């Protein structure tokens, strides 16, 4: 029907959205920089590695910055979504698919075939793209580059230059500017610089594992692996402090900050995955699926991942703990009792105080809880050292790393930006988002307030929600949005033409306010209907 017609219209009017000459020049510069990087994968290196790399990164950076300036700086500040649904890149056209396939390909090579990028194995020196980063890596951390160093550098670079683009695009909006500066800062400082410098401090007698301090378990699913815990402990006070910080992050810091500000403090202000989604991924935010069925799938998948992550970690830690307390203060059975006790405590609190708000999801929560507890009991009863029933804990850990850590978060999560939108990983896969979402839905002061009866159901908010929340369905009912998946990016509020939405931290009273009749109508009628 109609959408077909509009699609065909899009073909006719493409020239109205053509690039201006400044953008074309900038695009050439960027593509040249990209070409320089790609060529190295085929063994072509023009000059010395450091000059070649500087040239490539420089051309890319200049290209993106000038493209942005040509696109936005001569326009009056405001919402810049003209033609988004007509552009091949941003509406699943040929360009979008091409980019999606290329990104996915890059991730597959990165995760599974790093030698194609020139990683030297068995003591061989690096070549190709990775060798290009050797001088920089040596300078920064004292070692030759790895595929992860290359990836980390490019990732940080991308967040910074596309962050600049985002800031210019939303330069009328201080909330957007601040949180973008924040993700740029945390990516550059916490994810990139500090871990590299920390590894520089390592010596034969002192060794800390690579630790991005803002990456919190269960996102950082490997944080309590045996080798990491051992090296934390071996590193003395500093290591122990880091280990305690890692535990405190999830059990103390996270709940407090989420209670005060909602999960946005992490997902759209700090997190690196979120940072990439908000900057590089911003042109694709409208591609998220808003259907009710997508929401159903989301809840099953993300909560399954969090259960998987919890069991996997429990099994891994269990496997390396001893049976008695003589060697170490924590033993196998105490650990299991601790995990079980904590879960029961949380589950009990929710069922006692929040059962009503939990609604139909309570049954799913109960099922998840039940599965975990049965597994824990199983672990205890069968008491096999590194076995979770029929699965070896190391295998479990490997499977998780492969399926969730690599395929889901990288290949699908980022590779598919131009197809499924920018927050696929955050929405369907991230166990951290699930934990924070649970806290946000049930205990936080955060909500998106709707402004009385002003909503005109236009749907801009839903269209630009990267998490696929049908924001309009709440706004048009005058109902606050308290969804667990909301990362608080604030774009719904920004694109709203009628000033309906506001992200707020406030009292619990009136946070959840289902209404049938909105403000503005007969007061008696509102009372009659809304109290049903």
């Amino acid at each position, binding site marked *: 029907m109609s*959408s077909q017609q509009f699609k065909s219209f899009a073909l*006719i009017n493409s020239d109205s959205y053509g690039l201006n000459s400044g953008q074309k020049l900038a695009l050439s510069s960027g593509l040249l920089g990209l070409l320089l990087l790609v060529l190295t994968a085929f063994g072509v290196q023009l000059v010395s590695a450091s000059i070649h790399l500087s040239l490539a990164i420089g051309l890319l950076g200049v290209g993106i910055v000038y493209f942005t300036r040509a696109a936005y700086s001569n326009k*009056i500040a405001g919402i810049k*979504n*003209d033609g988004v*649904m007509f552009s091949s890149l941003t509406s699943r056209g040929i360009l979008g698919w091409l980019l999606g396939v290329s990104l996915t390909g890059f991730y597959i090579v990165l995760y599974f075939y790093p030698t194609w990028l020139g990683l030297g194995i068995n003591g061989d020196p690096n070549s190709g793209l990775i060798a290009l980063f050797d001088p920089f890596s040596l300078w920064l951390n004292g070692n030759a580059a790895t595929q992860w160093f290359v990836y980390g550098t490019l990732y940080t670079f991308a967040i910074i230059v596309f962050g600049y683009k985002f800031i210019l695009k939303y330069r009328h909006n201080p909330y957007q500017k601040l949180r973008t500066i924040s993700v740029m800062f945390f990516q550059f400082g916490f994810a990139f610089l500090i871990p590299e410098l920390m590894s520089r401090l390592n010596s034969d007698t002192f060794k800390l594992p690579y630790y991005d301090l803002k990456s919190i378990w269960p996102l950082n699913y490997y944080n309590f692996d045996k080798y990491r815990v051992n090296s934390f402990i071996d590193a003395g006070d500093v290591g122990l402090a880091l280990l305690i910080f890692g535990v405190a992050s999830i059990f103390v810091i996270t709940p407090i900050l989420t209670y005060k500000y909602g999960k946005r403090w992490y997902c759209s202000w700090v997190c690196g995955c979120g940072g990439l989604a908000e900057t590089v991924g911003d042109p694709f935010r409208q591609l998220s699926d808003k259907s009710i069925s997508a929401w159903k799938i989301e809840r099953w998948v993300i909560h399954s991942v969090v259960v998987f992550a919890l069991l996997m970690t429990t099994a891994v830690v269990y496997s390396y703990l001893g049976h008695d307390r003589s060697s170490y203060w924590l033993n196998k059975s105490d650990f299991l009792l601790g995990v079980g006790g904590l879960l029961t405590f949380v589950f009990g609190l929710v069922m006692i105080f929040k059962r009503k708000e939990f609604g139909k999801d309570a049954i799913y929560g109960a099922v998840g809880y039940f599965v975990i507890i049965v597994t824990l009991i199983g672990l205890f009863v069968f008491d096999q050292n590194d076995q979770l029933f029929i699965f070896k804990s190391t295998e479990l850990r490997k499977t998780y790393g492969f399926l969730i850590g690599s395929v889901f978060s990288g290949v699908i999560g980022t590779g598919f930006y131009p197809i499924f939108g920018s927050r696929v990983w955050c929405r369907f896969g991230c166990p951290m988002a699930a934990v924070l979402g649970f806290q946000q839905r049930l205990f936080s002061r955060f909500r998106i307030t709707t402004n009385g009866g002003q909503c005109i*159901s236009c*749907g801009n908010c839903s269209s630009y929600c990267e998490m696929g929340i049908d924001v309009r369905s709440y706004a048009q009912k005058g109902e606050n949005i308290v969804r667990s998946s909301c990362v608080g990016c604030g774009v719904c509020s920004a694109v709203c033409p009628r000033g309906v939405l506001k992200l707020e931290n406030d009292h619990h009273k009136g946070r959840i306010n289902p209404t049938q009749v909105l*403000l503005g109508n007969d007061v008696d*009628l509102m009372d009659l209907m809304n109290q049903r």
Partner: protein
Amino acid sequence: MKKIVIVGNGISGVTAARHIRKLSDYHITIISGESDYFFSRTALMYVYMGHMKFDDTQPYEPSFWSKNRINLKKAWVKKIVSEDKQLLLENGELLSYDKLILATGSKPNKFGWPGENLEGVQGLYTKQDLELLEKTAPNNSICKHAVVVGGGLIGVELAEMLHSRHIPVTFLVRETNFWNGVLPDHDCSILNDHIKAHGIDLRLGVNLKEIHSDRMGRVESVEIAETGEIIPCNFVGLTAGVSPQISLAQNSGIETHRGILVNQFFETNLTDIYAIGDCAEQTDQLPNGRRSIEAVWYSGRMMGETIAQTITGNKTPYKPGHWFNSAKFFDIEYQTYGWVSSLRSKPEHELQLHWKYHDNTKGVTLSYNKNDLTFLGINTFGIRMRHEVFNQWLNEKKSIEQVIEQLDKAQFDPEFYKSYVNEIQSVLLATLSNSVL
């Protein structure tokens, strides 16, 4: 089981259907010839601008209607045969009803301008209008210049739409200040500047004389009455307001004036036939100074909420609360709560206080009663305010001074936005003390 038939699937008809379903088990049918599903008319502009796809303008998924047992019928109604309680559809089909709700909406005004029916001349109201616009003005090589006639909300939206596709726009406005039939001149000046800043050729105080045609019967140019200037163009948008769509009612013996005449229960002169939304004209005096015809999104919704009560047995008069509204003019958001009159319609007892940011992109106007100093209303530009708070202040009949002093409680701008409240308060309080003295 009672059969409810609703003509029109806009916000009024659909809200009525939803609420009747909430309150009853009646058989509900919505008829529309315009679209398969309910869509947000106000979002049509975003489809043309490429912000959204047409399907994104539909607030409910297709499965919603069957799940809630609301039958949708795509057809045009030719006539109501009220004696038989039947509708005659254009395709010859007959449809019977126990209660009929007309929610037929509005149509763009035309004032008999010579050439107003030429090819390339249109209003912007329906989905079909949008499709036509896509054909006539898809880009700036097919449509080299566009003229928009009529300075209301749809006019400025149409100018923004065309501008988004880099089509040069001349905007002819009869008034000497943009939208000064509704806004005080102070507020209009913010919008005049902003529209021009976007590169729109805004012509104030001019009337359209004639639309000239080329040999193919297509629009070629427009002629301005005052100056005789000829402006060549490929597209003319007629946006001089809308009026109720009443042709069906007129054909069927229902009393009409400008709209379909109804009382506060939305009853027409014929039994079991009601009218709501844009097409309805109230014969009873409404509370809070509300107008007899309101072509506003939320009024349609409120009428739908109200009539559902009456239809399901709880006879309820329509009692809208305090007036409020909002709009966006290019990048400047506008909100209003209570009544702020234009120069033309300002009653003798109303005084106004103004504040404007130095770059002329933000401003507020507050109105009050000069006799008892009660607050009457506020217009805001580029600043968001909280509906709930102003609604309460209007209920409490707060004084203008109290409202100014507590203005920070009503702020609704996003976090970290610069607050202008202190500046506004000091300017307004100073003006107030001068005028009261």
